[in-house]
Each structure stands twice: as structure tokens, then as C-alpha cells.
């Protein structure tokens, strides 16, 4: 290489990444634009902070009157029930539904409608589904259970179907070549490969249902959400804090349990 050529080659150590830079600039511009549109002014923010301080001071100390605690425990317990039943039902249904949606196992006229069904189950926020079920089956735990079941199917069946589509078909062929019935092919060829992942999805969904069960009550679908919303509307902020802390504690407990279970199953 001639010295002239090398000097030119030496001058650029890093190529400027223009697409990336433009993207960052665009992002910054967007933030400024969106903030102005949403009417997020500094004064509003400051007023908000003052309000926030007042709000938080009204929340402390948390209300621990025995009758209120009992009401809260009943609400929490109902949320737990909703979560458990919805998870069991949702997971149990997701197993066959996911299988039916797998494109490598099922003919198109079966898999596509099922996939559409799963997509529908996923599209709407659990709260909206809860509202619809409240209108359909009335206030109470049943609406919550149905709403969370639908949500569970939307999540677990979708991921389960994707996991099935990723398996190696050679094992399935091997089982099929022995002349096994379809159910046996599924049981011995497909399931062993995807069962661990299914368990992973299921545990994630149980956790998700537990969190969501605490809030479907806000729209009347049972559980602690109702108690919480009532406290909020009555300006019972110290009681609200108790409920929030209880919910956080319950979820942390469930996470600890989950980690223990994961270690057990490794």
C-alpha cells in the first residue's frame, strides 16, 4: 500500500452511523412534541408534586383497624381464588387449544380458526374483557374468573403453539413410524420436547393472573379491586395504603414461592 493511500485510510477510525443518529434525533424531537401535546407543563408537574406530597401524607400511617383488615383479607382471598381457578381452567384449556393451533401438526382448516380465536383472546386488555363479562354474567367473581381464563388462553396457548412449531419433527416421525395412534404420537413425540417450556409459560401466567386478579375488581369483577376502588372513592387513603401494601406483599410472596418451585424442578 502506498503511503498516500494509507494516510487517507487512516483518517477514519469510525464510520458515522447516520441512520442511528437521525433516529436518536427523531426520538428527542418526538419527546418534546408529545410532551407539549399532552399539556405537560412544568407548573402542572409542580402542583402535582405538592398534591402528591399531601396525598402521601394522608396515606400514612396505614389503617389497620380489625374490621377493615378482615374486609381486606376477604377481598384478597377472593382475588386468590379467582387467580387459582382462572389459571387452572385457562392452562388446562390451553393444552388442547395450543395443540390444535400448531401449524406443523394440524391441517390449515383447523389451525387457522384456532389461531384467530387465540388472537382474539389476547387482543383486549383484561379489564375490557372483565367489563364485558360483568355485563354478561353480573358482578362478582365469575366475571373475573372468565376474564382471566380468556386472557390465560390468549397467552399460554399462543406460546405453546409456537413452541410446538419449533420442535424437531424427526422425533415425531420416529414415533409415527411405529404405527402409534395420534394421541400417542402427541404424548411421546411432541410433549416431551415442549413440556418444560409449557410449565414455564404456565407459571408465568399464574403470576400474571395473580396480579390481574387484584385489579379486575375495579370494574366489579370480584376480588380486592372492588374494596380498593371503594376506599379510593371514599378518600379512605390510609386504608388504601394498607390494601396496596398487602397486595405487594402477596405478590412478593408468590415470587418467592415461584423461585423455590423453579429450583425444585431444575
Amino acid at each position: 500500500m502506498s503511503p498516500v493511500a494509507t494516510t487517507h485510510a487512516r483518517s477514519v477510525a469510525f464510520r458515522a452511523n447516520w441512520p442511528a443518529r437521525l433516529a436518536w434525533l427523531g426520538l428527542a424531537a418526538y419527546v418534546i412534541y408529545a410532551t407539549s401535546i399532552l399539556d405537560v407543563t412544568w407548573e402542572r408537574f409542580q402542583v402535582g408534586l405538592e398534591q402528591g406530597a399531601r396525598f402521601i401524607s394522608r396515606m400514612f400511617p396505614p389503617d389497620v383497624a380489625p374490621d377493615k383488615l378482615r374486609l381486606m383479607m376477604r377481598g384478597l382471598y377472593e382475588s386468590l381464588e379467582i387467580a387459582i381457578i382462572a389459571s387452572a381452567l385457562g392452562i388446562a384449556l390451553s393444552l388442547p387449544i395450543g395443540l390444535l393451533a400448531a401449524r406443523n401438526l394440524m391441517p390449515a382448516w383447523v389451525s387457522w380458526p384456532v389461531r384467530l380465536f387465540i388472537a382474539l383472546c389476547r387482543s383486549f386488555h383484561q379489564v375490557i374483557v372483565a367489563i364485558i363479562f360483568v355485563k354478561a354474567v353480573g358482578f362478582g367473581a365469575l366475571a373475573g374468573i372468565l376474564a382471566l381464563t380468556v386472557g390465560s388462553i390468549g397467552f399460554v396457548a399462543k406460546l405453546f403453539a409456537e413452541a410446538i412449531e419449533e420442535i424437531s419433527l424427526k422425533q415425531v416421525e420416529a414415533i409415527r413410524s411405529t404405527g402409534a395412534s395420534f394421541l400417542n404420537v402427541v404424548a411421546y413425540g411432541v410433549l416431551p420436547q415442549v413440556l418444560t417450556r409449557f410449565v414455564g409459560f404456565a407459571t408465568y401466567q399464574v403470576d400474571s393472573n395473580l396480579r390481574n386478579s387484584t385489579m379486575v375488581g375495579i370494574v366489579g369483577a370480584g376480588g380486592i379491586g372492588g374494596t380498593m376502588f371503594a376506599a379510593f372513592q371514599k378518600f379512605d387513603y390510609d386504608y388504601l395504603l394498607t390494601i396496596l401494601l398487602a397486595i405487594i406483599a402477596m405478590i412478593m410472596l408468590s415470587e418467592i414461592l415461584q423461585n423455590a418451585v423453579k429450583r425444585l424442578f431444575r
Partner: protein
Amino acid sequence: MSATLDREWKRFTSAQRLGRFALYFGIVAACVVSLRTVEIIPEFLYDAPEQVADLLKRMWPIEWSYYPDGVHDAMVETLHIASLGTILAVFMAVPLGILAANNIVPNAAINYLAKLMLVSSRSVNSLVWALLFVAIFGPGPLAGTMAIAFRSIGFVGKLFGEALEEARPGPVEALAAAGAPWPSIFLKAYWPQVVPAFWGITLFRWDINVRESAVLGLVGAGGIGMAIDSAMNLFQWERVALMLVAIFTIVVLAELAVTAIRRRII
């Protein structure tokens, strides 16, 4: 040689087997107990299909003409809430994620504190956060944005912290051996390793947030949720149907956008 034939092959130790059995038993027991104690009125259950059919009938035909006036602005506002909220969350979640990573900050107390904050953020539902922020900032999109932000911190922070903990220590050691100061080590050894995970997590959360932002309006935190709330209270089901379709469309579009961006960046 004969000694090996005598040894039994057990997949799990006795303690593990006991643990697994206890788990299965626990799950079944939980389901049974829940089913027996949950308050479901059977008549409502039998009534349900009829009620749902009635509701769907009332939603048809969809009032498309309402879109420009009543729906479009609200949808755009929903998108802004989701995007700004995600951006705000990322700014707060990255430092928390770093503090929670035990390979970067080897102080167990700090790790624990950071993880505690992240868990609390996740345990409170975005709807509940919205309630809190409506009380602080008043109704409107500011409350919604803050709610989305605070809910997302836990999600992004936890996954980002875990990605950091999985970073290979080799390059870090090399830069430390070269005498680089800690911020440079973070920028040049940790950050490049977690960049794909970072964008994946952020895009994933944005996608979820689009869905969540749509319902925050039900408690007054801005976006299409407020329009849905008023329409439902006035029993204008055709308009509600229109809004649900709008939400569905935007969720699908968001997922497509995320898939496209992921392919380009990662």
C-alpha cells in the same frame, strides 16, 4: 464392576420427590378449596351465553362515522401516553437495573433495595397506578403517562438487570486490567453486550403499554379509555364496538411495527 449394577438410578433425590409431590398436592388442593368457597351464582352462569349474545347484537352495526370526531384524537393520545411512558420508564429503570445487578454493584444491600423497588413497581397494576396518579395530578393524560412509566420501571429494570448479570465477565476483566475507570468499563464492556436485550425489552414493553394505555381512561387517566367509559355509561354500544375495533387495530399495528424494528436493530 458388579457394584455399579446394584446402584439404582433415581432421577430426583428423596427430598426433591417429596417437594414435587407436595407441590402437585398443593395445586390440586388450592383448586378444590377455591372452587368450593368462591361465590358464584349458578343462574348467572347459565344465563351467560344469552347475555353475551345480546350484548354483541347491540354492538352491531358498528358506528364507523363516529371515528373522526370521537375516536381519532383519543387514539393518538393513547399512543403518546404509551410512548412517553415507556421512554420515561427506561430512564428510571436503567440505573435501577444496574444497581440490582450483583456483578456490577456487588453490595448485597443495594441489590436488595433496588430489587425491592422494582418488585413494588411491578406488583401494582397500571390501572391502580393510574388511580393514584389521577388523585395526584388530576384526570388527564399526565396521570396516564406517569402510571405507565411507573408500572414499566419494574418490568424493564428486572429484565435489564438480569441481562447485565448474564454478561460475560471476560471483557470486563480485560478493561479493568487496562486501568479503565468504571464508567468506561460499563460503556465499553457491559453495554455492548446487553444492547440487543435492551432494545428487545424496551420494544416489548412499549407493545404491552399500547394495550395498557387504552384502558387507563376508565379511571380518568386519558386516552381512549375515557371515551369508552362515557359511551358505556350512555349505552352507546355501537360506539363502544368502534372503539374496541380501533384498539384492536392499533395493537396489531404496534406488533407489526415492533417486529419490523426488531429485525433491523437486533
